[in-house]
């Protein structure tokens, strides 16, 4: 299942996007600022629990999606942990390469750990938004906070047509494969270039068609639509604010070392 489908089926879907963003975005800033493993774990736990218990995301699905950034995380933090120095004294473990030594120091390891947990917590916050909020709702929220309509319209149009483009590209690629494209390096390059140029032509033609169809419904240069109103019960703003204040207190406490 794609993230998009998760969002469409989420039990938190009908909660207004503003609440969800208010719930999940400030903690990212707090996590980055507090720079504490404990606080990162707290946020990660909170987001993951809300997603699985309130949002109805299956733990196995969630874990699978977490593995995606985990790959980047491992490579990225490994680079931070490993350091080079002239003397091997600073390292816990090291190898000598030529005249220098490559190794992992205690400071590097601590930094990598912090980085890893901060990244994980931030990702869980973003995942909370991604798993519960359809892109159309995000667009509405963007418009609500005053982003220029052109940007919002472009975002939503790109979102709609990216799926069409993917669908068409995969159909073309299947047709090419059935005629023995992508069998070797040379044929792969040739098939890929044909696919790309065809996709470009397709996009241009489709843009023209969509424009004509929009004109037929009275398009005059700005896209105005009505959004479905949901009668769902909304969370209380006060409760949400209280939660954020509690999180902020925890962030301050951990940052200044009272807890960790």
């Amino acid at each position, binding site marked *: 299942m794609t993230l998009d489908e998760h969002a469409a089926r989420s039990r938190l879907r009908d909660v207004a996007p503003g609440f969800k963003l208010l719930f999940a975005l400030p903690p990212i800033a707090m996590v980055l600022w507090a720079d504490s493993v404990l606080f990162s774990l707290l946020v990660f736990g909170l987001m993951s629990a809300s997603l699985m218990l309130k949002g109805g995301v299956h733990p196995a699905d969630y874990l699978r999606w977490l593995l995606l950034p985990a790959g980047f995380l491992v490579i990225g933090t490994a680079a931070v942990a490993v350091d080079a120095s002239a003397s091997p004294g600073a390292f816990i473990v090291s190898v000598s390469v030529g005249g220098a030594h490559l190794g992992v120091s205690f400071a590097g390891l601590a930094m990598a750990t912090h980085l890893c947990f901060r990244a994980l917590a931030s990702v869980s916050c973003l995942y909370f938004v991604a798993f519960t909020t359809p892109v159309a709702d995000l667009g509405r929220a963007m418009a609500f906070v005053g982003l220029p309509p052109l940007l919002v319209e472009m975002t939503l149009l790109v979102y709609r047509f990216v799926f069409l483009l993917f669908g068409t590209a995969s159909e073309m690629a299947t047709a090419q494969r059935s005629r023995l494209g992508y069998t070797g390096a040379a044929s792969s390059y040739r098939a890929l270039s044909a696919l790309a140029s065809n996709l470009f032509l397709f996009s241009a033609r489709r843009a023209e068609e969509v424009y004509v169809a929009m004109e037929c419904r009275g398009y*005059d240069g700005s896209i105005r*639509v009505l959004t479905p109103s949901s009668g769902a019960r909304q969370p209380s703003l006060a409760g949400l604010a209280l939660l954020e204040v509690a999180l902020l207190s925890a962030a301050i406490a951990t940052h200044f070392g009272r807890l960790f």
Partner: protein
Amino acid sequence: MASPNMLRTEALRCVWPDGTVALDGLDLSIRAGEVTALLGGNGAGKSSLLLSFNGILKPRSGRVLLGDQPLDYSAKGLKSLRQEVGIVFQNPDAQLFASSVYEDISFGLCNLGLPEPEARRRIEAAMELVGITALARKPVHHLSFGQKKRVALAGVLAMEPSVLLLDEPTAGLDPKGADEIMRFIRELQRSSGMTVVVATHDIEMVPLFCDRACVIDRGRVLFEGEVASMFEHRDLVRQAGLRLPRIAHLIEILATKDGFDLPGTAMTISAARKILKSMKKEREINGA
């Protein structure tokens, strides 16, 4: 309606920017409150004609009239024209652009500048009418082809046009889906008195759901008249790269090749059945 003709073209000539002559002196009248089938092979000019009815394609010469008024191609004129004349395209992916069903249907209504409660009422009604209420909040790319076609139709119906232009409404649908959508359009036309133009080469559904037929070929009208009279002008139908419905073809072969003396012609199963039954009755009377 003062004139029985809802839409009319006079010596309409349209040329695409690349120089292709789409319509070449086309004279045609679409009657109010009827379902007219626009028949023609690929590239005959069906879609171009629909686009010129909607003011998208401007005539090189000749003119298009809505009621008795020639089309007004000013921005204001086009706005009122497009409120009056709605068009549903063949490919729903070219028509649906919004990220959810509800938003897409609302697009035309917002462009009309309707007050929000009225717009919402019409959106609900249109979704109810075509049976997609459950899909309202779905992203468009999660829908099946048939569902997308319905959404595209709802988006136009919500604007409550008095003329509905449909480009290949049954193309790409399974037999049941195609039947359902045509049945729906026929019922809608009967209950609302809407004028409907269906561009198609699905010839089998023409005698079932249409009142009049117009055969065009290379941008010109070959035949225009009651669907029932298509049988007599079958050579024109074939000239346009089309054929008669299978039943009509069978009746034709029976009459011309096999020497059957048939009391009339038929293009549908029910009409053919009537003929066969009357022949059976006649034989019983003669035999008795």
